[in-house]
């Protein structure tokens, strides 16, 4: 049985990483002069920074903590979420990238609801999309804080400096750092740290790939053999969950990316349309390297537990931290722990910015109220408030990180994909169709979840069909049918011309 070794080195490396994040926040503070700098990084990002910011926003606590946990628990089933990534990036870039950037230029949009309000010429669309974002942000942010607290606990457990730290202390500490550097520099700090975080995630993936391989004399073939001898289906293409679940995940995760506000909003930030030609392959390359961690950590931990070399884990979410505590060299553990924080923080800071924009810019405008006079100051206040609310939500929730992450993804996908991805490419789409599909998507995800919790009814679909995929399918059909069934409305001249380009 492998025993845990104690070392302070990982804690020191992670502390250095936190100091670097705060230093970047302070640097960005000097360069953040107005709301445009705060929300869309002054719209001056190059292709490399945009690509790394895109993939590091996707790689969240869900991917780096929840993902290995899913492979540990279910075998290869969740690889369908990973494998859909390249197709999803192509879809998101082709459907949303150019159009959103053009809208940002023509109408000066600083947030997704603002761009959608301009496209559909409708305040109702602005209000509903801001509501969907605010609700989803809170849940998704809570996921990141919960994952971060879990990783911090694992890190402190390995260190000889701190004897024991509770989940609450870890969550508060993590939230403070996160909100701190985000309040300082807004989107500029967020994307600047994304670059550092993205580089760390790729390095961590490569290190983990070799660290897991080193655990098995026969390399990965031995790990695969161990899993297959215990249960052949776990190593099959559909894992232990079966084909229905896997295919519904594939559809949800391939198309869902086009409705994730933390991903598509990056399209408001880059400098030139022509940069998209480089952004797409760079995002795919960097993202694919980083996602290796999802597979290898999960496979490695499952095989180690089956061989009896590691104690069975208390929860699936412990797969990544447990491997680092038990099996990795201290310096490797330090780099990978820091990368886990990076994955979580890069997504969480994007959400803090989105939530602040929805609360300070979009919801007041949707109700016809004048924007606050000191918008930048209010954005910072909203960021702190959101961080506090999400911390409370995280401490009160007991769900697996992977479940919360999947729920957050489904909510955004069902509520926003038709309005964003199809609406920006089809002139006939109008505000009524957008509102109907957003309301359907929210009701089919958030509404059903609340109803299930309040009434205690089991509303799962048969044969493991993912409920998020069904909600996305329903909102897409509603969007197309309503847009076809009702007469089209004339568009503002600039939007009409823009949709022709």
């Amino acid at each position: 049985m492998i025993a845990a070794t104690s070392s302070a080195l990982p804690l020191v490396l992670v502390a250095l990483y936190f100091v670097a994040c705060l230093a970047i926040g302070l640097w960005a503070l000097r360069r953040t002069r107005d709301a445009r700098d705060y929300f869309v990084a002054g719209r001056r990002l190059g292709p490399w920074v945009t690509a790394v910011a895109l993939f590091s926003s996707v790689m969240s606590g869900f991917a780096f903590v929840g993902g290995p946990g899913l492979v540990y628990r279910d075998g290869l089933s969740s690889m369908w979420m990973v494998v859909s990534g390249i197709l999803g990036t192509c879809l998101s870039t082709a459907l949303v990238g150019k159009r959103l950037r053009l809208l940002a230029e023509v109408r000066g949009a600083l947030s997704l609801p603002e761009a959608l309000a301009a496209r559909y010429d409708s305040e109702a669309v602005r209000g509903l999309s801001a509501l969907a974002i605010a609700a989803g942000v809170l849940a998704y942010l809570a996921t990141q804080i919960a994952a971060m607290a879990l990783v911090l606990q694992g890190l402190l457990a390995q260190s000889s400096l701190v004897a024991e730290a509770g989940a609450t202390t870890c969550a508060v500490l993590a939230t403070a750092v996160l909100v701190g550097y985000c309040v300082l520099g807004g989107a500029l700090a967020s994307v600047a740290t994304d670059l550092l975080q993205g580089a760390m995630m790729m390095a961590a993936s490569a290190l983990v790939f070799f660290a897991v391989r080193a655990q098995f004399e026969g390399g990965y073939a031995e790990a695969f053999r161990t899993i297959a001898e215990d249960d052949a289906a776990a190593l099959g293409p559909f894992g232990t969950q079966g084909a229905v679940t896997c295919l519904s995940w594939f559809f949800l995760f391939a198309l869902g990316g086009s409705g994730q506000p933390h991903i598509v909003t990056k399209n408001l930030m880059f400098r030139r349309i022509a940069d998209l030609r480089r952004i797409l392959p760079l995002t795919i390359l960097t993202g694919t390297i980083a996602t290796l961690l999802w597979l290898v950590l999960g496979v490695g931990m499952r095989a180690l537990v089956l061989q009896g070399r590691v104690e069975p884990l208390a929860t699936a979410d412990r797969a990544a931290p447990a491997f680092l505590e038990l099996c990795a060299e201290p310096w490797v553990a330090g780099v990978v722990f820091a990368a886990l924080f990076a994955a979580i923080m890069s997504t969480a800071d994007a959400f803090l910015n989105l939530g602040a924009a929805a609360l300070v810019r979009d919801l007041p405008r949707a109700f016809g109220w004048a924007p606050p006079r000191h918008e930048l100051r209010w954005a910072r206040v909203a960021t702190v408030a959101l961080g506090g609310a999400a911390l409370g939500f995280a401490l009160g929730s007991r769900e697996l990180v992977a479940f919360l992450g999947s729920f957050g993804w489904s909510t955004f996908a069902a509520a926003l994909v038709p309005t964003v991805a199809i609406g920006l490419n089809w002139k006939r789409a109008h505000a009524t169709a957008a509102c109907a599909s957003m309301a359907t998507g929210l009701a089919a995800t958030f509404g059903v979840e609340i109803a299930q919790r309040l009434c205690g009814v089991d509303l799962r679909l048969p044969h493991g069909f993912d409920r998020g995929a069904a909600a996305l399918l329903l909102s897409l059909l509603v969007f197309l049918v309503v847009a076809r069934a009702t007469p089209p409305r004339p568009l503002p001249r600039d939007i009409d011309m823009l949709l022709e380009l």
Partner: protein
Amino acid sequence: MCRLPPLALPALFSGLLAQAAALIWLCALPVAPLEGGEPHPRLPILRVAPESFEAAAPLSAPTLLYGAGALVALFALLALGFGGGQKLRRGRGAFTLAALAVAGAASALWFVHRGAPHARDGLAGLPPGSAWLLFGLWPAEALFAWAYVLHFRALIWPPSSEVRFAALLAERDRSSAETHR
């Protein structure tokens, strides 16, 4: 010349309808055989495939319909994004090649796995179906990125669009200056 967006929307709708039909079909089948993984007999948290996976034949047809519908819908949306109101000229071949490669890899995965679900002799110690998933379907998707990059100036951002966009911005600036005056 074929204009993709008008074709893409009916294809998208057909793909979505196929998925909806498959979902209804699945709902009509008895639930008992498959409910996802079941707990491992010895180890907590881990899941194993239920014994009844081998009796999953009744699920094959609706699952295949769902998968095909999903692929058609995804390809149609890609075509909508690639076409964006413009004619597909040189890009059509590359786009079709990418779609065929992805559909081919997905079909190979399906049939190899259905033919021998417990085979272990695939690439890198993986079963053949899993090898097709990780080394076939996954990289094949990158062909769409290749088509996007290769035909970027013809499809996504042609010089004519650049000129029209500059004119649109100039018009906006002119009218905003007049409003200020």
